[in-house]
């Protein structure tokens, strides 16, 4: 099917874009998620406001607070190729190639990746087949086909980049009709499968602000997928690790799980458990077990939830080990 009918506008600045927006409309960035959803009649926005002519949403550079500012419209390919990011945030340049395909990375943007709609076996279904079922929560109905008797939507947030960005302590800037605000990326996500992020219809995610990582820190992003390209993650695990210089004990850690629920999940217990301690194999096992316990994937992809849960343990261990190795290699 082609695209549904809609009014198209392409303003040159953010204020204009916001003033033109209506409740029925949507903002268009790379279009790799939205246009697909429109063709499948999952979304029929009107108007469609193209942000691509707004230069204020582009560019990568340091801001006054010495944070890296990444314009939301920066494409994934630009993130990967950016020399500042390669030097200071290698985890980002290493994560980008794990997203989708080169063609989609050339179009897809960082902001769009963070604003990715949640996905589900039933929701992202051929229209004709979807019509066979009662409407689910995500399309305004009163049921969930994945968790029978469930009282909410379990659609999965499948973005890759959000995980390392949360681990890095990134914030996002949201601009609305009357004000702009900065919030921690984790709080950008609502935890609802129906509306995965906090953006109101006339708000724009304008930029991502990333503090430089402290010394003796390392990151990792582990992605579980069945093919070496295209696939959304069946599970994502990202770890930020910061060690004391003197004794190698853990100063700080952030463990984030993705693709197992409607928003990325920070495993807080892991932080409590690890902080101030030496990362022994036993402790890593213990953290992995806690992550495993925290994850509750459901049957909304073609892969079994039981397997995805088991892999939380494996990927968490691998992520911590990789982050540790990176610190060691950098120090060496």
């Amino acid at each position: 099917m082609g695209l549904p009918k809609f009014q198209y506008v392409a303003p040159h600045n953010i204020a204009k874009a916001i003033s033109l927006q209506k409740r029925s409309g949507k903002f268009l960035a790379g279009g790799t998620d939205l246009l697909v959803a429109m063709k499948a009649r999952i979304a029929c926005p009107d108007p469609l406001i193209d942000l691509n002519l707004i230069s204020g949403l582009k560019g990568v550079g340091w801001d006054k607070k010495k944070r890296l500012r990444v314009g939301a419209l920066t494409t994934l390919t630009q993130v990967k190729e950016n020399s500042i990011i390669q030097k200071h945030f290698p985890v980002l340049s290493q994560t980008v190639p794990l997203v989708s395909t080169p063609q989609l990375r050339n179009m897809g943007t960082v902001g769009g990746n963070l604003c990715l709609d949640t996905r589900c076996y039933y929701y992202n279904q051929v229209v004709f087949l979807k019509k066979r079922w009662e409407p689910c929560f995500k399309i305004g109905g009163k049921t969930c086909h994945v968790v029978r008797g469930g009282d909410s939507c379990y659609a999965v947030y499948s973005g890759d980049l959000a995980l390392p960005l949360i681990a890095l302590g990134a914030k996002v800037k949201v601009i609305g009709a009357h004000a702009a605000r900065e919030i921690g990326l984790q709080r950008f996500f609502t935890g609802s499968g129906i509306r995965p992020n906090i953006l109101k219809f006339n708000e724009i995610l304008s930029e991502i602000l990333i503090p430089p990582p402290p010394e003796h820190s390392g990151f990792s992003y582990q992605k579980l997928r069945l093919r070496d390209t295209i696939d959304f993650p069946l599970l994502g695990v990202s770890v930020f690790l910061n060690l004391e210089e003197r004794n190698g004990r853990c100063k700080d850690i952030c463990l984030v799980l993705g693709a197992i629920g409607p928003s990325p999940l920070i495993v807080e217990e892991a932080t409590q458990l690890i902080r101030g301690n030496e990362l022994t194999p036993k402790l890593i096992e213990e953290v992995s077990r806690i992550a495993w316990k925290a994850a509750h994937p459901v049957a909304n992809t073609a892969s079994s939830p039981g397997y995805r849960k088991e892999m939380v343990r494996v990927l968490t261990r691998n992520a911590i080990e990789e982050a540790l190795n990176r610190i060691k290699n950098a120090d060496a």
Partner: protein
Amino acid sequence: MKEGYVNIGKRLPRIDGIVKATGEAKFAGDLSLPGMLHGKILRSPHPHARVLCIHTDKAKRLSGVRAVVTGKETVGFKAGGISTVGDEPYLALDKVRFIGDGVAAVAAIDEETAEEALDLIEVEYEELPALLDPVAAMNEDAPLIHDHAPQNISFKTDLSYGDVDKAFEECDYVRQDRFETPPIRHGFIEPHAALASWDHSRRLTFWGSKQSPYFTYRNMSKALNVPLSRIRVVQPYIGGGFGGKNEMFNVDFCAALLSQKTGRPVKIVVSQGEVLFAYRQRHPAIIDLKTGLKKDGTLHALEAHIIADGGAYLSIGALSLYLMCVFFCIPYRLPNMRAKGYRVYTNTQPSCAMRGHGVPQSRFAAEVQLDIAAKEMGLDPIDIRLKNALKPGETTPNGFKITSCGLEESITESKRIIARWIDERPKESDPKKKSGIGVGCYGYVCGPRMAGHNTAGAVIKVHEDGGISLFTGSTDAGQGSDTILSQIAAEVLGVRLEDVRYGMVDSDMTPVDTGTFGSRVTFITGNAVRVAAEDVRNQLSEVAASALEANPGDIVFKDRKVYVIGSPDRSMPFSKLVKIAQYSGTGKTILGRGYWAPEGLEVPNFETGRGNMSGAYSFGTQVAEVEVDTDTGMIKVTRMAMIHDCGQPINEMLVEGQLEGSAIGGLGHALAEEIIRKEGQTMNPSFLEYRIPTSLDACQMEIHHTETYDEVGPFGAKESGEGIQVAVVPAIVNAIYNAIGVPFKRIPVTPDVVFNALKGIGQKEV
């Protein structure tokens, strides 16, 4: 291999490569005609239901709608694959039998209007119990999907050779296992598409994505009740078929019927989603297999009981089931064999032919069981294959006559390859990763003999500049046959590949053809082309003989020239010869004609199964190396080797492409692909969730040709690229067995399955 060829055996780029790579090639969906309407098909939302009433008034009243048709507007023809008794109407007559079955069709001024009109058609259904499991469908008291088929058995076959019961008693080792294979996709990228134009001379012109256009030619005539010669089927470029585009489908019929109703051309292009939930699949099979061996590893007896899920309609399933059963007789010597097969109707998508046609399922079972047997008996899996390999000159108990056969050579070569691979392994490796190597062997047909039309024809026209126009009834669905057939014509006429223009199928002009399936094009059509080219050569030899004052038998055609044998200076350019032929005297129209089919073949009775069904058989051995991540259960196929006997390769580059593509297809079948259904509904009708391997999932591949030359095949050639898929799945599964000690009896072997198996073993050890 024979030397001295100019075009044969060379690495020549395919003739359609540039137009396909640049996007210039036009596929059915790209075509349009003035005044053309767009059609859409309304499909059943129920797996099994009686159609009580269809209200089309509202849809017909929608502005822009030109026609709405249902089964009532048809003559009630039912398609039946190769069977004379049909069971599949193109639009539902009384019942719908799977989710996606065609119910009505609309033609409108654009796609959106047609889509909107579908929503306005109201269908009253009486839902019937859905049969989704073939075993349950065979119960005595199960409801019937088709009234004519008790126990929902659409076809059965019962083959028996030798004294099987006695043979099992004579065996030193017997084992029995159950193997299961999933429903999978053909995976072609171009969806089904059709453009039909009915004109006032009461003729239909049809352009469609059909790998075997003459199936559609014949069925269209019956389904529209129009004389055959008034149906013209024209072939555009085809974006893959793999067996899934042989038959005529509702998309083809509805475009034609709607054009007939409206007097306007009608195009229907189905979405990839529709292809994946409403069209064909490979037969899923449950195979109970018992094999008996003597203690030295000699295969002595085999017994198989197969239940194949045929889905809602017969399609070409009788042949599928027959091949699944009879191919236990090949590629190993097996004196005593019994195979009982049931093809069962269920309320799911119909199953049909797919690359390897029925054989991948049974060969997977047989080859994996052979490895389990070898391990338990303490024998080498390669030696056991070598010991039992068929040799040239043997006849199998069901009557397959083995002529050229490079199987022994391929198995022996596989042994050398395995030794080298083991030698090349890194000395240090990750303890979490386990590697293994496995093999599988195959034998395959080069055009199976079936009842009815079984020949191919070719026509060659020669232009006075020396160019050649070649026409056959065979299609190139992507396998490269346009290039291969052109090479054959060029070789016979002593011209170059670029001098030949290959004309695609047009049923008004090209010779009637059985179809592009069963690996028959190179072998059978290739011979027809050879004969047609020889006919041209004979006609031109007469002219050359008179011009060069020699005997016609002494004229040599080479390097775009003709000369008298032994006197290369008594020569003239090929183009000049054609001019002389056409200009002098009354003038000769040089038109070559050829037709060919293997001689002495028997039409096998699919229920009892005796008879030599192919003019030659291809053979080969597939080797696969895997690496299993014991943490995640992820399997990586690290490399594969294909040692195959396709006789003389006509074009090595195309043979390699065929083998590599086929092996990667087999890789997907072994490790990832499966149609997932819930209550009869396909849950993964997209290539995002139905995971065919991508180029990044491919591995390093080695290809070795055996030294064989088939006396019947054109220039010694046999089948290539279809047979190999039969052996890929067991080679990979056996490699996993070799790596972690678990023989998987159900495919696909996905990471969760491996993970659970590894966990199970861990527990046992404790």
